[in-house]
């Protein structure tokens, strides 16, 4: 089931939380929705799930509009809201039964679906406990289980791994990846390694607008642009080395790092590493370190979301 977001806008008073947002998500795709706090991620998700009405624009989920066919859309969406709200005084199994019934799962299938969810989400030992007695990690699994109980075609997860320990994060990510291969998933987060690990495509939004879009690899490439290496050269006089490095044709800029190494930025779309090696050989210097500096998504994120 594809999702098309068209010129989606939400105003709170005079402030625009979401501003003319447009993007598509295809079946079998996991879309990472990134942005600083208050960028409009949650508001966008609340509109897709028909909780909030947009001030302008429309979202179509599998051909149905959120303005007209809310009940049909709600049937095909599984939603895990931010902070994972649950009825703490209910037992896990009772809560799943309630969620299934209200999602319209047929009575004859409900028992099997509950068993399936308990198995998939690893809740077997906890199924008779009250949700309030569970740890945060298990609550998160219950949240996922209720979102998946009716085998929805669209899955919307608002910060699904907040507050989990590293092991749980890995487990939940694996689960999402596994499920996401056949469904349409939108996942919001501000944890960057998370999107790299789980998402096929990333949208970064800031102030309600898209500021960057693409696969994790593309975005990283875009961010790096020029090649940067950290280089340590010994047995040569520092000023002379600096001078000669600067004179290399493929080198754009040389910087002296506080620890005595050089940071060398190559010319656009060129590599200077072979030239640096040859220079050292010619002059009898010893190259003791050459580390390529990887730019990561964090740089992209910072570049596009920090103003000025």
């Amino acid at each position: 089931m594809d999702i098309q977001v068209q010129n989606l806008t939400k105003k709170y008073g005079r402030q625009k939380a979401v501003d003319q947002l447009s993007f598509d998500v295809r079946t079998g795709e996991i879309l990472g929705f990134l942005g600083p706090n208050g960028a409009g991620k949650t508001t966008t998700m609340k509109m897709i799930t028909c909780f909030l009405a947009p001030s302008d624009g429309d979202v179509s989920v599998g051909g149905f509009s959120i303005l007209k066919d809310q009940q049909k859309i709600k049937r095909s969406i599984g939603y895990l809201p931010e902070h994972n709200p649950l009825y703490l005084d209910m037992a896990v199994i009772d809560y799943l039964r309630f969620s299934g019934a209200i999602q319209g799962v047929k009575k004859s299938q409900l028992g099997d679906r509950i068993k399936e969810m308990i198995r998939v989400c690893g809740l077997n030992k906890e199924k008779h406990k009250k949700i309030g007695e569970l740890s945060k990690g298990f609550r998160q699994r219950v949240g996922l289980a209720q979102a998946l109980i009716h085998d929805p075609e669209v899955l919307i997860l608002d910060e699904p791994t907040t507050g989990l320990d590293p092991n749980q994060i890995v487990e939940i990510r694996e689960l999402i990846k596994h499920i996401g291969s056949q469904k349409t998933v939108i996942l919001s987060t501000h944890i960057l390694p998370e999107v790299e690990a789980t998402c096929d495509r990333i949208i970064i939004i800031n102030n309600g607008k898209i500021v960057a879009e693409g696969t994790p690899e593309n975005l990283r490439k875009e961010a790096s642009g020029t090649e940067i290496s950290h280089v340590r050269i010994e047995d040569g006089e520092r000023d002379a080395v600096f001078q000669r490095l600067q004179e290399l044709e493929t080198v754009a800029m040389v910087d002296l790092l506080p620890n005595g190494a050089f940071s060398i930025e190559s010319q656009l779309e060129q590599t200077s590493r072979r030239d640096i090696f040859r220079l050292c050989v010619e002059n009898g210097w010893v190259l003791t370190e050459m580390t390529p500096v990887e730019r990561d998504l964090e740089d992209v994120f910072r570049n596009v979301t920090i103003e000025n």
Partner: protein
Amino acid sequence: MGSIITIARRELSTFYDSMIAYMLLGGFLALCGFFTWLYGGFFGRDVFFSGQASIAPFFGAAVVLLWIFIAALSMKLFAEETKTGTLELLLTKPVTDWQVVMGKFLACVSLIFVALLCSLPYYFTVAWLGPVDHGAVWCGYLGLLLVGSTYAAIGIMCSSLTDNQIVAFLLTIIVGIIFLFIFSLLSAYTSGMAAKLFDYLSILTHYSSIARGVVDSKDIIYFLSIIGFCLMSTVTVLSRRKIAD
């Protein structure tokens, strides 16, 4: 209809799981019994001191006690769900706002129904002691069910206005005071049209006319219209989130 029942059943199971239901039922029955048998002077004539088999004190006490118990019962229905965020999750399920409100209302009404059922032994024992106007008693029960449902609708509306349960409780109590006592007082101190109006607005006017055994469509319409108004207001409050400004 299925969704309404699913929601109502969840609410009821919460009532029973968390002891709220038992405390309220127990408290309601104990206090009603106290006023019926021992201290009825406050609401009429009790059985022991007057030496008469009369169930009037029960109906006098129940209408006030129900008001306090229902306020305690309904205060959490929306306030708590708004605060914890479960309301958002519930409203993104394939249910309409109406179904959510009706489900919660139905849960309240069924608990009131159970409370009234549990009080039937009082009626039977009084009837065993002496002659009782059975028709009037059944009408009284109908009146209590209507009044209870009205309190529940008021309580649900107050609960939807805030995310603080205590505020919801106090609001319900205040609205109850107005409908139970203030309107009667005002009608006593005014005259002409104003007195008639306040008298019409008072819950006690309609309740006592039903409890006397006169089931008039006018009284039933009064209760149903308050219930309708409160539930509609609740739906409106819920749909506030959808207002595009």
